[in-house]
C-alpha cells in the first residue's frame, strides 16, 4: 500500500554516506544516546529472552520463582518441550501434530498466491488491453477491504456448497488465505515487474516469443527477489495468522499452532511450563526464516503493505 516502487536498499553500518541522523548522533553527547538506545533495545528483547529462559527451566521452578533466578541457580531441562510436543495426556499441548497442521496450511497458502499474483501482475504490467488501469486500481483498492468483511459469507459459501470435513477442510483454509493475499501480492509484484527494462521484453517479442514464454523464460528469473520478498511476507502472515485459522479450520487435525496456543493460553493460563515452551515452538520457524532471509523481508516491507 505504501507504494514505494523504488524502495531504497538498506545500507549497512559501513555505508560511507554521511546522513543527517549520523550528524545528530555525533553531536549528541553519545553517552546519553547510547543509554537511550540501550534501554529501548533491552525493553524489546528481554520479554522474549525471559520466555526462552523459562521454557528450559523445570516446572516447579517456573511456578515458584521468576526466570531471573535462573542465573543465580541454573537448572536446565528439556522436559517442557518433550511434554508440550509429544505429551499424550489431554491437558498437554500435543503440539507436534499442530505443528504439522501449520506446515500443511502454510505451504500451499504461499505457493498459490505467489503464482496467481505473478501471473496477474504480468498481465497488468506487460499486456495491452482496454480497461487495464481500472482492473489494476480495482485490485489495488481491494487491499483496503478488511478480511472481516468476507469471513462469515465465505464460510457459509463453503459449508453450503462443499461441506468439507476432516482434513479436506485444509482446502478452504488455503482458498481463504490465497484470496486474501491477492490484492497485496499483485500490487507488490506489479510494482517490481513494471520496472523491468522494456527492451528485454520487446526483444523477446520480436524473436516471436508469446506472452506465456516471455513470462516463463524472461520475466520469472528476473523477479525472483520480489517473489522471495512476497513469499516470506506471506509465509510469516499465514504461519502467524489466528483469525483465518479460527474461522476456516476445525478439529485438531486441521487447526494450526496459533489456534492451539491461544486455546492453551485461555484454558490453562497458569501452566507456564507448557505456554512458554509452546510459544517458543511456534516462534522458532518464523524466527529462522526471518533471520536467514531478513534482507528480502525488509525489502518487501519497504515496498510497503497493508494486509488483511
Amino acid at each position, binding site marked *: 500500500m505504501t507504494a514505494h516502487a523504488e524502495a531504497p536498499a538498506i545500507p549497512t*553500518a559501513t555505508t560511507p554516506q554521511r546522513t543527517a541522523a549520523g550528524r545528530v548522533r555525533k553531536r549528541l553527547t553519545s553517552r546519553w544516546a547510547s543509554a537511550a538506545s540501550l534501554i529501548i533495545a533491552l525493553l524489546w528483547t528481554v*520479554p522474549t529472552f525471559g520466555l526462552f529462559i523459562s521454557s528450559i527451566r523445570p516446572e516447579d521452578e517456573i511456578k515458584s520463582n521468576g526466570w531471573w533466578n535462573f542465573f543465580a541457580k541454573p537448572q536446565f531441562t528439556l522436559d517442557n518441550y518433550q511434554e508440550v510436543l509429544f505429551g499424550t495426556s489431554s491437558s498437554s499441548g500435543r503440539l507436534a501434530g499442530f505443528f504439522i497442521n501449520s506446515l*500443511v496450511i502454510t505451504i500451499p497458502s504461499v505457493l498459490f498466491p505467489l503464482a496467481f499474483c505473478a501471473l496477474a501482475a504480468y498481465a497488468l504490467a506487460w499486456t495491452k488491453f482496454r480497461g487495464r488501469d481500472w482492473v489494476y486500481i480495482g485490485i489495488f483498492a481491494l487491499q483496503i477491504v478488511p478480511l472481516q468483511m468476507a*469471513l462469515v459469507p465465505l464460510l457459509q459459501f463453503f459449508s453450503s456448497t462443499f461441506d468439507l470435513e476432516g482434513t479436506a477442510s485444509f482446502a478452504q483454509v488455503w482458498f481463504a488465505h490465497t484470496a486474501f493475499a491477492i490484492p497485496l501480492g499483485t500490487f507488490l509484484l506489479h510494482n517490481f515487474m513494471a520496472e523491468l527494462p522494456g527492451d528485454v521484453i520487446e526483444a523477446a517479442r520480436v524473436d516471436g516469443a508469446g506472452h506465456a514464454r516471455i513470462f516463463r523464460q524472461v520475466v520469472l528469473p528476473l523477479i525472483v527477489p520480489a517473489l522471495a520478498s512476497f513469499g516470506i511476507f506471506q509465509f510469516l502472515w499465514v504461519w502467524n495468522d489466528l483469525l483465518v485459522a479460527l474461522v476456516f479450520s476445525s478439529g485438531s487435525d486441521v487447526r494450526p499452532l496459533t489456534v492451539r496456543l*491461544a486455546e492453551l493460553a485461555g484454558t490453562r493460563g497458569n501452566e507456564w511450563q507448557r505456554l512458554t515452551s509452546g510459544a517458543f515452538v511456534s516462534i522458532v520457524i518464523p524466527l529462522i*526464516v526471518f533471520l536467514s532471509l531478513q534482507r528480502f523481508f525488509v525489502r518487501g516491507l519497504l515496498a510497503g503493505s497493508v494486509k*488483511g
Partner: protein
Amino acid sequence: MSFDWEAEAPKMTMLLYGIVAFLAIIGVLLLVLDRVSGRKDRWVALGFLAPAVIMLTIGLIIPAIRTLAFSFMNGDSTQFVGLQNYLWMFAQEESRIVLRNTLLWVLLVPSVATTVGLVYAVLVDRARFESVAKALIFMPMAISFVGAGIIWKFIYAYRSAEQGEQIGLLNQIVVWLGGTPQNWLLEEGPNTFFLIAVLIWIQAGFAMVVLSAAIKAIPAEITEAARIDGVTPWQMFWRVTVPSIRPALLVVLVTISIATLKVFDIVRTMTAGNFKTSVIANEMYSQAFVAGDNGRSSALAVFLFILVMPIVFYQIRQIRRRRQEAM
C-alpha cells in the same frame, strides 16, 4: 512419549493433493496460454488474470457485498431490520466500550510505535553495531501476535501473597520498588493500555526499518549545508531529518493505523475481550462465531471498513499522480 506418524498420514496426503493441484493449474494454464499467445493481447491477459480475478470475486468481493447486506438484517439474516445493528453499536454501553477501546488503540499504537522507531533509527544510525541493534528491535515482527500475547502475559503474570514469589517481571519490579503487585490484566481501564503496549512492541520494528531507510536516503548535501550553517543537533533533527522523511513518516503512521484497527489476536489471546478490553475486530468475531449474530457482526465489519476507507482514496490519488509524473 512417542509420536504417532500414522495419524499424520492423511494430512500429508492432503498436502500432496494441494501441491499436485497447484502444479496442474499452473501447468495447464501456461500450456493453454502458449496456444493463444499469437493472438490478441486481450485473450492472453484474460488468461493471466483469470485465477486472481476468480479468487478475488469468490473470496472477497461477493462475501463483502453479502456482509454489507447482512448488516441491515437480523441475527440469522432472515429479516430486514434497517439500521438497528448500527444503532446497537453506538447505543449499548458494552459496544460503546468497544469503540472507545478501539479509539485508544488507534491513537496510541501508531504514534508511540512510530516515535520509538524514529528515535531508535536516529540513535543507532551509523553506530558500530547498527545491523545487530536493528535486528533486535525488528525481531518481534517475526513473532506471531499469539506468541507475543503469551510473552507479555508472562511479563504481566500475577501471584497473590499466598502463592509466593512473583513470576512476572513487571510485578517483580513493582515489588523491588516497594509497591504492591497487581493483576494487571484484570484492572478494568488500565488493562487496555497493557494490551496496547504489546502491539507497540511489535510495530516499532516496522517503523524503525522504514524510517531508517528513509533517513539514509537524505542527500548528503542537505545535511552538509545545514552543518555549515551551524545548526544544533536538535535543529538538525526537527528542521532537516523530520521534513526530509515526511512521506515515509506518513506511510508508517497510516500502515500501523490500519493494522491497529484490525487488531484481534492480541486481545483474543490475552483477555479474550473480557474485563472491558474488547476491540472492534474481536467483538466482530465474538458476535459472529460465539453469539451467532450475523447482523451485528456484519455491522461491525462494515464499520471497520468505513474506518479504513479514507486511506484508499489517498493512495489512489498517489498512484495516479505518480503515473502522470512518469508520463
